[in-house]
């Protein structure tokens, strides 16, 4: 509903319920995704701490998509969707990699893993978002992040499912 793809546009108006970005598999994409998340979370009335959490979750998901999913492949894209429903901000990040199996990610809080230098991204995402769904497939991984809106909702123009 109302989905549209564009290269990257800077303004997210509250009247738009859904915004999509298609991005290259580069480090710049990670920063762009984080900046878009910061802007959109702010526009949707989240407080400063929540904005930071959402932005960091999106950043970590983008890192996974660019580095681990698409492995910097210039022929593969990362798509990033932000959708505001009545009480949620729903963010979906997709890559075109071989599929991330979340069950194979070691617990970063286990004593034997505490001093590992990587493997904390998904953990941080789960810590910061209210709901996280990971859908791996042979054509890529989709991760859906949900943050509940606690303040007054802007559901008047809510997109129907």
């Amino acid at each position, binding site marked *: 509903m109302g989905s549209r793809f564009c290269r990257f546009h800077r303004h997210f108006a509250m009247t738009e319920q859904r915004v999509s970005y298609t991005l290259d598999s580069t*480090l710049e994409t*990670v*920063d762009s995704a984080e900046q878009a998340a910061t802007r959109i979370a702010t526009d949707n009335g989240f407080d400063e701490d929540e904005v*930071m959490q959402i932005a*960091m979750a999106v*950043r*970590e998901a983008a*890192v996974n998509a660019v*580095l681990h999913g698409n492995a910097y492949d210039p022929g593969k894209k990362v798509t990033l969707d932000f959708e505001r429903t009545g009480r949620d901000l729903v963010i979906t990040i997709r890559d075109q990699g071989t599929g991330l199996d979340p069950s194979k990610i070691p617990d*970063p*809080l286990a004593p034997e893993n*505490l*001093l*590992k*230098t*990587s493997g*904390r*991204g998904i*953990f*941080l995402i789960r*810590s910061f978002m209210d709901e996280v769904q990971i859908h791996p497939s042979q054509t890529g991984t989709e991760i859906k992040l949900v943050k509940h809106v606690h303040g007054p909702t802007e559901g008047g123009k809510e997109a129907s499912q």
Partner: protein
Amino acid sequence: MSLKITTRQVDGITIVDCSGRITLGEGSVTVRDNVRELLSKGHKKILLNLGDVGYIDSSGIGELVSAFTTVRNQGGELKLLNLTKKVHDLLQITKLYTVFDVKEDEATAIKSFS
């Protein structure tokens, strides 16, 4: 956006003042290169002052862990100083707060090195 680092020596301790973000790419690499350079010069007592680091991602956390273990494996000590709330909270939820030796004031931190 990028990380700026300056170093100074106080009573045989190398204080590394960090300002900016420690994230994938530039910030993490800056920390890594700086710590390696200090170790190569024989500076093994390192105090990372993160007072002006308001943001760190999982890559940056990994870089701090790497610096900590690298210094320790060479017989040195690496401690953290002046964590901002955001960095403090991240180290708490990743259970790294008790792994690192975290100090709140510089004078106490300097005296704590063996």
